[in-house]
């Protein structure tokens, strides 16, 4: 019988702990498929964040390094400077990357560290139970904005990828989504370009991936993908903000 679908080689057989309807699993798989296709499994080092994806080191069959909250880009810098010919990537949520780790991500990007960042934005702190994130939309309820985010009190969501894309050290910056199959395919293409930019030593590369959190949004998985499309994409527009010439083709 012909095999039409299988577990990527870069995924372990460990069962994931993610909630039903969470898109972390999809994103993990996309990264694994890209690593398989680029044939870089044995030279890739991943950095797991603090947050829901803290156990990422259990799911990718790679050398992995677990980092403190927000510090993954600094840890990645240390690793990449020691092993410049390896492929180094971080996997970070929006609380990790856009709040506590703002300094680390901005300066890793500014230095043009040749690492790849997979930035998962679900507009909420998942692991700690649904608090206000730097990316929570205006009006969106969280456990610490129980009446919805009031811009006069809590300010506005941060558009990290647009901000980072203006830095000269950044070679590739894109925002994608994984709320339906067509967008999942686009997301994979972007992740592949980001890794290629690193391999070509173009500079820092980042892919922001809009993701769902049905558990903390308090809605069903099906409602969650619809909510993402209706509410997140208008505020966080999809697309490539910066592409180096050789990976554009």
């Amino acid at each position, binding site marked *: 019988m012909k095999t039409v679908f299988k577990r990527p080689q870069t995924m372990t057989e460990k069962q994931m702990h993610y909630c039903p309807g969470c898109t972390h699993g999809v994103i993990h798989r996309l990264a694994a498929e890209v690593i398989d296709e680029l044939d870089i*499994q*044995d*030279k*890739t*080092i991943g*950095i*797991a964040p603090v947050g829901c994806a*803290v156990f990422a*080191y259990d799911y990718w*069959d*790679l*050398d*992995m*390094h*677990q*980092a*403190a909250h927000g*510090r993954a880009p*600094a*840890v*990645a*810098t*240390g*690793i*990449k*400077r*020691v*092993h410049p010919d*390896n*492929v180094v990537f971080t996997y970070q949520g929006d609380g990790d990357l856009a709040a506590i780790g703002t*300094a*680390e991500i*901005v*300066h890793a990007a500014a*230095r043009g560290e040749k690492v790849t960042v997979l930035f998962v934005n679900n507009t909420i702190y998942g692991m700690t139970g649904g608090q206000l994130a730097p990316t929570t939309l205006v009006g969106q309820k969280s456990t610490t904005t129980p009446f919805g985010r009031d811009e006069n009190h809590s300010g506005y969501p941060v558009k990290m990828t647009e901000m980072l894309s203006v830095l000269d050290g950044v070679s590739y910056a894109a925002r994608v989504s994984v709320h339906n199959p067509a967008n999942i395919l686009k997301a994979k293409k972007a992740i592949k370009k980001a890794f290629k930019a690193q391999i070509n030593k173009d500079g820092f590369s980042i892919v922001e991936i809009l993701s769902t959190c049905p558990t903390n949004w308090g809605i069903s998985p099906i409602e969650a993908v619809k909510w993402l499309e209706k509410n997140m994409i208008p505020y966080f527009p999809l697309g490539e903000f910066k592409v180096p010439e050789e990976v554009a083709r």
Partner: protein
Amino acid sequence: MGKVLMKGNEALAEAAIIGGCKFFFGYPITPQNEIPEYMAKRLPEVGGTFVQAESEVSAINMVYGAAGAGARVMTSSSSPGISLKQEGISYIAGAELPCVIVNMVRGGPGLGNIAPAQSDYFQATKGGGHGDYRVIVFGPASVQELVDITMEAFEIADRYRNPVMILGDGILGQMMEPVEFKTTEIRSAPEKPWATTGARGRQRNIINSLYIIPEDLEQFCQKLQDKYEAVAKREKRYESYFADDAEIIFAAYGSTARICKAVVDQARQEGIKAGLIRPISLWPFPDEPFRRAGEYAKAFLAVEMSTGQMVEDVRLAVNGHKPVYFYGRTGGMIPAKSQLYEEMKKILEGGNQ
């Protein structure tokens, strides 16, 4: 190689190079800036890399990454910067990674000032960051000792897979002294089969300090404890200066110990049986010489550039057998020989504790 006249910070940096340090991540803070400046110039000459981070928090996390990747790596800072590094130091200890951290201690708390102090003893030896962990801490007292200990620090860090801290102070970092580099041959790091290098031809490696199951974390903490006990057994270091028959024994480390030595010299000339026990390893603390001296000395006088931190370890070691007095100056003020002599006389004449 003969003696050369070098500033403490620069001598330390060169010693790190010889010790095999290939990576340095730091952030400017006085009074230790000569260390990153020296490394920025010197590391590229030996095929190493210097990166100036955006903060101390980031610098220590770069150390965390590079240490996990198998490199000999160092960072340096001074008190407020070391406070910022504590999160990373806890992770490094929790992931059992080797690295060397230098603290050229300045006045505190808060922004304090940039003058020499010894007020980070608690932070260095009692944890600093969160969790049950230990950092191996050395308190050198001369530029020569700074050099010798720094070279060896990388070996010790690798031997135990543990961070090693060199606790200096502004005096030690800034002063110039003749120093001899006993070797100029650059050492290299041992094989590190646990490091993240890309899992080519082997099982993957994971650098981690997370143990979500309480039974697992307890077991890991016990394993760390066993390691610390082994360190305590093997790595206690001290200098005994006329302490074997002394009636009054000074307890001091680092720059302060040198002033105490001068007081001991003067006292001995005058027929007073004074001595000094100078801890060189601050953790593990060399308790045994103090315990022994508690049997024959009349009293101890701990001297620090703090309001009294190491004195607690001296009291634990002496364990109530004899009085342990304290004299401290803070804020960058340095104890004068004459003041220490007066304190000693007061104690010998039965002064109050």
